[in-house]
């Protein structure tokens, strides 16, 4: 038996997850589980008023107390989790689809079309997104549906800009030239070869986007152009509890903490995914 002349590199060690990363994963999974299954367990009384029981402090019966209508704050948060997260997922999915479409057309299309679409993207990036979304939501009639549509039609520029850049890079790669030589049609080339090899950027962006979307959605509802009372959506809940902060702080603190925890959890998940994809960012 002779030892190999060249030392074999040790098999690349699989990196485990740190305790902090596990905590963030658990938090996100818990939030998703609450949003999906929680509302099934909620009592029917969360939409009906019980004035005799209004503004009760936290107790064994009402863990987070009751609001001005005597409704249980805890169970309204649970039901609101579904509304909030479902809306946020819808918004991010919709604007990602718009962004992907615009990026693909810009990357594949002739120069003038690319220029035109990217100038439109510039305009979108230069405008204050939340204010324009507010305008659209107000114009369509204040409702959760309007807010979701408004955020979808104002949220796409960053995705479109990033993805178009990546797609242009992908198109320079040899395998794309190879496919072209083999006579693959432009449409097929873009959708089957270039796009799937450029989508990484969306996967990395996705979790962080949910975090910011939750915040903006709550803001729009607070301003009054999103979900309307008696919806249990968190921003709308804060808006209707606003006047009771000095007499019953739990009615305001609980839904705000829910927004903060959700937004922070998804934001951290986004950071973790990003560092895993690009370890040079570690420590920053």
């Amino acid at each position, binding site marked *: 038996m002779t030892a190999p002349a060249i030392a074999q590199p040790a098999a690349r060690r699989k990196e485990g997850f740190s305790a902090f990363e596990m905590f963030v994963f658990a938090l996100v999974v818990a939030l998703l589980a609450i949003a999906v299954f929680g509302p099934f367990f909620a009592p029917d009384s969360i939409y009906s008023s019980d004035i005799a029981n209004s503004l009760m402090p936290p107790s064994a019966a009402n863990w987070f107390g009751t609001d001005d209508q005597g409704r249980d704050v805890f169970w309204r948060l649970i039901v609101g989790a579904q509304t909030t997260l479902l809306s946020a997922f819808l918004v991010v999915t919709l604007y990602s689809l718009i962004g992907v479409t615009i990026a693909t057309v810009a990357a594949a299309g002739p120069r003038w079309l690319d220029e035109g679409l990217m*100038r*439109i993207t*510039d*305009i*979108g990036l*230069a*405008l*204050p997104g*939340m*204010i*324009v979304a*507010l*305008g*659209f939501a*107000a*114009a*369509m*009639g*204040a409702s959760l549906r309007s807010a979701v549509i408004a955020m979808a039609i104002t949220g796409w520029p960053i995705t479109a800009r990033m993805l178009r850049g990546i797609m242009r890079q992908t198109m320079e790669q040899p395998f794309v030239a190879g496919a072209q030589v083999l006579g693959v049609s432009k449409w097929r080339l873009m959708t089957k070869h270039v796009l799937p090899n450029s989508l990484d950027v969306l996967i990395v962006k996705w979790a962080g986007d949910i*975090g910011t979307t939750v*915040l903006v959605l*709550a*803001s729009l509802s*607070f*301003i*009054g*152009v999103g979900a309307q009372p008696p919806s249990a959506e968190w*921003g709308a809940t*804060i808006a209707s509890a*606003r006047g009771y*902060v*000095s007499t019953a*702080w739990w009615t*305001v*603190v609980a*839904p*705000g903490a829910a*927004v*903060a*925890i959700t*937004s*922070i959890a998804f*934001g*951290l998940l986004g950071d973790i995914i990003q560092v895993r994809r690009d370890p040079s960012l570690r*420590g*920053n």
Partner: protein
Amino acid sequence: MLAFRAYSWFLSRRLGLALLTLWGLASLVFLMIKLMPGDEAQMAAGADASAAQIEAVRERLGLDAPVIMQYFSFLGRLLRGDLGTSIVTLQPVLADLEKVLPSTLELVFIAMLLNLAVAIPAGIVAAYRQGGVFDATSRVTAVMLGGMPAFWLALVLQYVLGSVWRVVPISGQQSYGMASPIVTGAPTLDALMALNVGAFFDALHHIILPAAVLAALFATQIFRTLRASLLGVLRSDFIMAVRAKGATARHMLVRHALPNSLNPVLTLSGTQAGAMIGSAVLVETVFARQGIGAYMFNAVAQKDAFAVLGSVMFIGTVVCLVNLIVDILQLLVDPRIRAAQLGSQGQ
């Protein structure tokens, strides 16, 4: 001569982009008006307008013309400064907004000062003592603050600092009887111009918490950006050379590392100045301050659609102009941006 041509090239390009953005904004607002359910003339005239009044509005806005003509007359009205009429105040929206703009600009200005005054030192210390206790705590704080809804932070701090501890006033722009004659419309500035020191500190006392909340929203970004940028610079060779020649840590940081890492911070704070104006809508109303954000918030509550859309147009325009000014200032301040912008395009 070459430099002059390079500058004018940059300026015309940047102005062109600003005009394009404003045109895009105007088109979006027109689209919003067309998306409104119901009769536009009815909406513009108000809920209790008579049939004759509605017809007069329809006539004035040219709503019987084809949509494309309506679009051009809409753009024409915007160019003349007509943002529509509020059905609540019965005033032109532009006149309403002009009155409260200085108050918002003052809030944003002070918030920006607080933002930089806290985030820059924190970023420097965190980067210099990377991995230390301060670094860890300030990073955790930044993550927490970054995820909090601004209006909620405002409500909670207002309750704790204003109602429970009573260290700041709960709301308003000045105490009763402390109002100075209105010259600019910005309370602290008016107090200064009236040479009224008491009123000045009173106005400052009222603005500190709203400005701090607005600053907290944006300080996390500045902190993260400066920390990352400074960490990069501190690892570079020339810093090692500076240390090797025997420079003190302070000299190295202040004279060498910091000037080389402030560039991204400068760019970011420029973008933030515009974004802060938009975020004022979340803060002003909680503290019962006047301003374009509070005006818009009230317009939403009163279903004053044209005032809302007029505010969107106005705020968008202010943001574009602020961004334009910041870009030009940056060009004048930072030689590297000057080289990048002028060198590549200015032959």
